[in-house]
């Protein structure tokens, strides 16, 4: 009873509450439904730990037994561990370091206000007053010039300075200051490297490892589509031949070359997509929607018991 009936009952109650929330605009119901969603997200996050354990359980024995392609499993586990470690915001341990500050001191030329940038990273970029004050004729300049800190003459008064690295993952000095004639505002830009989800290392790994791999996998589709088309689009019967013809028309019509072959081809393509294609799609969508409602109903009403142990 406890193993099979209780989960079914709990699932039904939770599901009916969420469905009821859609139809019954009562605040307490919406709050309950939101809370159930939150619990679901917490469960999913907890399951991530189980997933990590499963990853170890599946791959480590294969490494130990030196099964086929075991080096790739070493790469898998090492990269998973590495991304986990670089995702921890280490820089916040013991208090986050300040990106820097602007200190106004005396020492400037008489009648002139100056800004001096002393950046820990010389290749940082500098923007003054959002780019309104030009640096060497451009809105952005480098923090060091010929190995010396950048110095810019400013009109006395309030200004804003931003010193940042072009790559993300470093602290940004964004400060306002008020400098009078004969004073120098010194921007000490520490620009510490960040860790964590917006940190430098993680961003680097995203840009140089994840992004190319992700794009490469998606790019494989171009080859697979050609190979699948070669294999599967055979005019075995009349319907297949019609499908084939429509596919060729749409392929041509959706590329600029279609207009060269016949200027009406894009319009014919759009007609095929807008009318016969949409008619078929809508029928499948409606059928699938009804099937989805029924599947949901049978789980809610406890008729489907596979997920709690069969009969």
């Amino acid at each position, binding site marked *: 009873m406890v193993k099979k009936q209780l989960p079914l009952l709990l699932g039904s109650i939770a599901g009916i509450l969420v469905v009821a929330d859609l139809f*019954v605009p009562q605040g307490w119901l919406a709050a309950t439904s939101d809370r159930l969603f939150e619990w679901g997200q917490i469960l999913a996050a907890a399951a991530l730990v189980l997933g990590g354990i*499963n990853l170890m359980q599946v791959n480590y024995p294969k490494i130990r037994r030196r099964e086929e392609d075991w080096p790739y499993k070493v790469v898998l586990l090492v990269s998973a561990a590495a991304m986990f470690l670089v995702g921890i915001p280490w820089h916040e341990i013991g208090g986050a370091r300040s990106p820097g500050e602007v200190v106004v001191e005396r020492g400037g030329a008489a009648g002139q206000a100056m800004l001096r940038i002393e950046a820990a990273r010389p290749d940082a970029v500098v923007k003054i007053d959002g780019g309104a004050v030009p640096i060497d004729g451009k809105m952005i300049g480098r923090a060091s010039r010929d190995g010396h800190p950048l110095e810019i003459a400013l009109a006395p008064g309030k200004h804003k300075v931003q010193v940042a690295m072009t790559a993300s993952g470093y602290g940004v000095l964004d400060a306002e200051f008020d400098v009078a004639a004969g004073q120098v505002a010194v921007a000490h830009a520490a620009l510490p490297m960040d860790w964590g989800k917006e940190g430098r290392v993680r961003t680097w790994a995203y840009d140089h490892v994840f992004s190319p791999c*992700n794009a490469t*996998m998606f790019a494989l589709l171009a080859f697979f589509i050609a190979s699948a088309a070669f294999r599967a689009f055979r005019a075995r019967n009349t319907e297949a031949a019609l499908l084939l013809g429509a596919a060729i028309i749409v392929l041509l019509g959706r590329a600029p070359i279609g207009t060269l072959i016949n200027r009406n081809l894009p319009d014919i393509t759009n007609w095929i997509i807008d009318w016969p294609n949409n008619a078929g799609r809508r029928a499948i969508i*409606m059928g699938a929607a009804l099937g989805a409602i029924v599947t949901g109903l049978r789980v809610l009403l406890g008729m489907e018991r596979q997920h709690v142990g*069969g009969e």
Partner: protein
Amino acid sequence: MRGSRQQQITEIAIWVAGILVVGGAVGYGVHHLGKTAWFNADLWFSAVVVIAMAAAVFYYIRRIKRDPETIYVRRIPGVDAIEEAVGRSTEMGRPVLYVTGVEETQNIQTVASLLILGHVAEMIAEYDTDIKVANAYPLTMVLAEEIVRQGYANVGRSDAHRPENVMFITPEQFAFAAGVNGLILRERPATNIFLGRFFAESLMLAETGYVTRAIQIGGTAEITQLPFFVAACDYAILGEELYAVSAYLSREPQLLAQLKSTDLIKGLVIILIVAGALSATFSSLFGGFDLAAWLVP
């Protein structure tokens, strides 16, 4: 027979009366019970569809229990092929790969896939072959492992179940595709079953499976991926068939009743489509009446 016909009419009348009473009570509530409505009147049609579907399910359950032969379910070649394919795997001594899709557990297609997995696990336990289940989300993995374990237990083969065969790969779409492709190329399963929600990786998985000469059964309700499964798999389970597989395999009266209820509602939908098309085309004859706006304000 006249007696059973009378009974049917009586049952239908009771259901209609029940729906009217409930609907009336809700309507009364909408108008009279306090400032906060107890029913979102704009969604009345959706509520009617859901209630009608539930009512139809109960009606057909009772009808099937009385006379199981009244329900005819057409063949779904993709589903019939599952058992053949499992048998082929057993003969070749190679495992079956089952992929539950790339969506989270709460997605209805993943739910449908997990429900089918239970039946497939029982089949595999009976045939004494291996199953590898690849999951994109940890929670799906947890559920899949429990379902496979139960499947083995249902046929008395608990000892044969290996938990490490139910794997969590990764939620990242193309990393998942790469992981499953690696699994296919290394383990060389004789049968690949892709059931659930898929996106761009569907063709990658199917084409890689083709290289290993596996029998492939692909099923999804994701419209954009159906053509890829049709082109690249040996058998395709399209759209709503995915939700019917569990009923088809188990042949339980309750589940078959749901297939019939779907058909009934489809009939109503067809009537509404025709009525809507007519009302839109000849709206001036109907005093400018817009059926669509009336049904879904």
